């Protein structure tokens, strides 16, 4: 669905998105890498769809949307850290971007 603009810089940075290796230009966000990888979603919501309105359902799939830090729909596990806003994080060589499934777990001693 998405492809880089023809005038964009050379894709020089290689990252891994859900097991796929993709290249993005320097300065591109992790969310851009998700889109270039062709994924339509990168997280599943912690709540069943529409729970607040009493509807039944399962965690809904979400993907990068606003690309400017507002909508929180691009949350991903990045290099092992859950719930990162991938649109606000620059891609780095070797970065691992994984699906965020529901709410993050917390590590307690």
């Amino acid at each position, binding site marked *: 669905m998405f492809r880089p603009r023809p005038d964009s810089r050379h894709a020089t940075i290689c990252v891994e998105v859900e097991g796929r290796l993709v290249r993005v230009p320097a300065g591109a966000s992790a969310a851009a890498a998700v889109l270039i990888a062709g994924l339509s979603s990168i997280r599943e919501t912690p709540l069943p769809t529409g729970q*607040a309105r009493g509807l039944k359902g399962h965690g809904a799939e979400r993907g990068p949307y606003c690309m400017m830090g507002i909508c929180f729909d691009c949350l991903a596990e990045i290099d092992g850290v859950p719930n990162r806003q991938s649109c606000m994080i620059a891609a780095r060589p070797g970065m691992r971007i994984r699906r965020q499934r529901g709410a993050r777990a917390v590590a*307690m001693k």
Partner: protein
Amino acid sequence: MAPVRVARQEEMRRFDAIVIGGGLVGTAIGYGLARAGRLVVLIDEGDVAYRASRGNFGLVWVQTKGLGAPHYQRWTRASAAAWPLFAGELEERTGIKLGHEQNGGVQLCLSDAELAKRHAMMQQMQVEAGNFGFEYRMLDHAELAAMLPGLGPTVAGASWTPYDGHVNSLLLFHALHKAFAAAGGTYLPDSTVTAAVAAPGDFRIDVGSETLGAPQIVLAAGLGNAALAPLFGLRAPVRPQRGQILVTERTSRTWPIPLGSIRQTPEGSILLGSSEEEVGFDTSQKPEIMRAIARRAVLSFPWLAELQIVRAWSALRVMPPDGLPIYDESERLPGAFTANCHSGVTLAAAHASLFAPMVAAGALDPMLAPFSAKRFDVSAAA
């Protein structure tokens, strides 16, 4: 705002009751009145209002309320007791799930001194409750650690009562508006009172180009009540008190109950509060207060330091001089009532299910007499 003209009868819309204030207090009372079959109009300033209803923490909280004021403890308890039925009915009428949970709550104490002070307070509240009873337990660190995963090693303990709970206050607000309209209430948004005339049992207010009339009027305009009340022979000396809140990213469900200034919503967000600042009508946020809130939270649960803060805001509590609610009916102009408090969530059930029926019946119950603003009169205190 001054009495400028008396509306002609033919251009006036008549209701059984006018409620001024479209926040949690006003909508709860409006809903209660409409449910009782009254024709009610609700005047709401709109989004320019300070709106404590959109900034609060969402606790249904009993255990810190009413030391030295047993009438307040009883009123709060009455509301907490009415909450489950109130929530169920609202959910049924609107289809909106409120996220209401009321399985008790704890108030954390970070030092032995805090714990001792809290223990003394709970003992005293139990004494003041008399035969009405006041159930509580003090929990030491070990008991608390077994109940709350990831508890910080320096937390001394906590108090617990079975009465406390929490709710999604935005959905509560939405549900009250929806239930009010469904019960036949008339909602006038973006409206301010530009003129008012009042006689016993005969109240007329101008809102924009329209005049509204009713034999009863309830002032529930939060901080706006301070200026409105004198027009109706009442007093409401309330001031703003700022509170700030931080919200973390959503995590898996951790605690079974709310923890006073820390709570986790059923959706997984963790809310951290709750500061108190006397700064007037200033809704800005201050890093040093946010830092203090975060520091206390991390002392309580060190693993919280790993979480991202995704939202933060401040809001203004509606604070009477002694911190207790104000409920009154005007002596000079019977039919005019005030309702002011800083616990619009906790007291929502009382406002809809107890206060509104009193207004509908035409008189406040004697249980509310101690809440009259007359308590602030020097002569009354002497």
